[in-house]
C-alpha cells in the first residue's frame, strides 16, 4: 500500500481545527480496506529542546477526532511547548502490534549505564576527539530516544517517544506526559519503556571546548 500520511495541522492554525481537520480527513479517506490509523502529534519543549511524539493507533474511525484533539492538548500541556504538527497515516494492516516497549525504567537506566561505558571505549579513540582532548577531561553527551508504551481502551495503543541528550529531564517529562494521558482517560496504564540509539547508531555531532573539559555531543 502506498504510504498515506497527511499533515493535518501545523503550528499557527487554530487549536480547535485539530479535531475538525482530522475528522474531515477520516470521513473522506477511511475506506473499507483500512485496518488501522496512526495519529501522530509532534512537539518540542522549547526551553529544553526535548523533541517528542505522542502516537495513537486506532481501528475505529469515530475515535480519531477525539484522540487527536485530546492528545494534542496533552502535548501542549507544558509551560512552553510548540506543537509542530498533527499527522495521520492509514494502514491496510494492524501495525501497532509491532510497537512493543516493555522494559522497566530501571532496566532502561541500567542499559544506558552500560552504553555509557561502551561510548567512552568507542569514541575516546576517535581521531576527532583525540585531536582536541590533549589531556583534557572528555565528557560524552549522547542523544537518547526514549519510548513508552501505554495500553488504552479508546485506542489500540498509545506510544510516547522522546529524543534528547539529557536523560534526567527527559525521564521526568516522560512520567509527566504518560500520567497525563492516563489521567485524561486516553490510556489505562504504562506497559513499559524502551530506548534506542545504541553506541553503533551514534555519531559525533558537535565538540565544544569548555574550560578544561571537552564536551562531545553524540547524535
Amino acid at each position, binding site marked *: 500500500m502506498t*504510504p498515506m500520511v497527511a499533515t493535518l495541522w501545523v503550528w*499557527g492554525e487554530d487549536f480547535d481545527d485539530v479535531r475538525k481537520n482530522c475528522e474531515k480527513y477520516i470521513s473522506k479517506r477511511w475506506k473499507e480496506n483500512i485496518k488501522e490509523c496512526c495519529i501522530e502529534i509532534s512537539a518540542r519543549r522549547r*526551553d529544553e529542546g526535548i*523533541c517528542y511524539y505522542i502516537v495513537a493507533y486506532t481501528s475505529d474511525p469515530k475515535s480519531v477526532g477525539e484522540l487527536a484533539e485530546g492528545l494534542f*492538548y496533552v502535548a501542549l*500541556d507544558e*509551560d*512552553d511547548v510548540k506543537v*509542530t*504538527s498533527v499527522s495521520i497515516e492509514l494502514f491496510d494492516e494492524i501495525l501497532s502490534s509491532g510497537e512493543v516497549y516493555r522494559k522497566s525504567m530501571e532496566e532502561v537506566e541500567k542499559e544506558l549505564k552500560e552504553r555509557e561505558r561502551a561510548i567512552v571505549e568507542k569514541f575516546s579513540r576517535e581521531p576527532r576527539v583525540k585531536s582536541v582532548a590533549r589531556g583534557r577531561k572528555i565528557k560524552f553527551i549522547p542523544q537518547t530516544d526514549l519510548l513508552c508504551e501505554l495500553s488504552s481502551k479508546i485506542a489500540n495503543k498509545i506510544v510516547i517517544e522522546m529524543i534528547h541528550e539529557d536523560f534526567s529531564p527527559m525521564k521526568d517529562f516522560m512520567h509527566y506526559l504518560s500520567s497525563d494521558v492516563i489521567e485524561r482517560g486516553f490510556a489505562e496504564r504504562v506497559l513499559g519503556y524502551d530506548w534506542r540509539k545504541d553506541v553503533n547508531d551514534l555519531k559525533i555531532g558537535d565538540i565544544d571546548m569548555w574550560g578544561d573539559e571537552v564536551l562531545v555531543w553524540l547524535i
Partner: protein
Amino acid sequence: MGGGSRIKQYERRFFEGEQIRGEKEDEIFHIAKTFRNYEVREAEGGGYELLKSGEVVGIFSEARVEGDRTVFRLSHGMNLEVSEKGIREILSPEKAELCGLTAADGTICKYKGKGGSSVGYEVSLTSVSPELIGVFKELAGDNYNMTPHEHIKHHKTKEGEEEHYHVAIYSKKVAYDLWDLGIKGPGPYEFHPPIQYLDDEGKRAYLRGFFSGDGNVSMTKEGEHAIRIYSSYKEGLNELKEMFEDLGFHPSEIHEKYEKPAPGRHRKEYNYYFSIPEEDHLRFIEEIGSEKEEHKRKFELIKLINGRKKKEED
C-alpha cells in the same frame, strides 16, 4: 508597499520618504557624505537631500550618517542605504526582527471569510506564553503603525484552563509586504531570510527574532549548555547558518533530532538544528540575544558559569 513589482514598491517607498519633508528653495545645504555618484547633503534647518550625479533624487527628514554609509529612513520598516557600492533598500532592525519572529512562529495567510465570498489576509503569531505576543505587537507598531488584534483563547490542561494567545494583523498590504520579501511559505514550515535586504544589524535582529521563537538554550545539572536553533525546514536553517557565518560566528553542521518511526510507519516532519559552539556563546548573548525571559535567565547563568570556569583556569 503592497502588490506589484519590487521597483514600483521601491518608488513608492522612496516617494513616501520624499513626502515627509517639503523642500524649501532658500535652504542652505552642506555636503555630509559623498559616495561615487551619490552625494548626501544636510540642510542647516534639518533634513537631508540625496543627489545622484548632481540631481536631487530624494529628500529625507531622517538619516544616519556613518563611516562608510548613510542610511535614510523610508516607510514601513524599510531603510535606504547609500554607500560606495551604490544604493540598496534594507530592512530596519525592527522589521528584520519581525520577519525573523514571523518566520519561526508566525503565519502569513489568505483566508476566506464566513460564507466564502470575502477574502481576508492575516499576519499572525500564536503562542502559549504572552511575552512574544508583546514583542510582535510592538514590532507591528514600529513597522506599520498598527495595533494588532489580540485574541486570548483557552484550552483545557491537567491543572484546569490555560490561556493561549493569537495576535494578528488583518491587512492585505502587510501580508503582501512580507510575502514580497519571501520570508514565509509556501510550504507549512518553509522560510527564507531576506538576506539581500539585510545589513549586519538587520541580520542580528532577524536572528534574534527567529531565535526568540525557535531557539533553545538547554542546560544540564552539571552546567553544560547548548544554544541551538531548530526548524523542520533544512534549507532555511542552512540560510540561517550562513548568516551566522557572515557575522563571524562558527555554527555547527546541521543535525537531525530524529529517529525512524516503527517499521511500516512514515514521518513527514523532521527536526533539524544547528548549535552555536561554546566559543561563540558570550558573543551570541551580547550581539544576538533573545526576547524571551527564560533565554535571558539562562544567558545570565551561562555568563556566571563561564566566568567561574575562567577563574578556575587562571
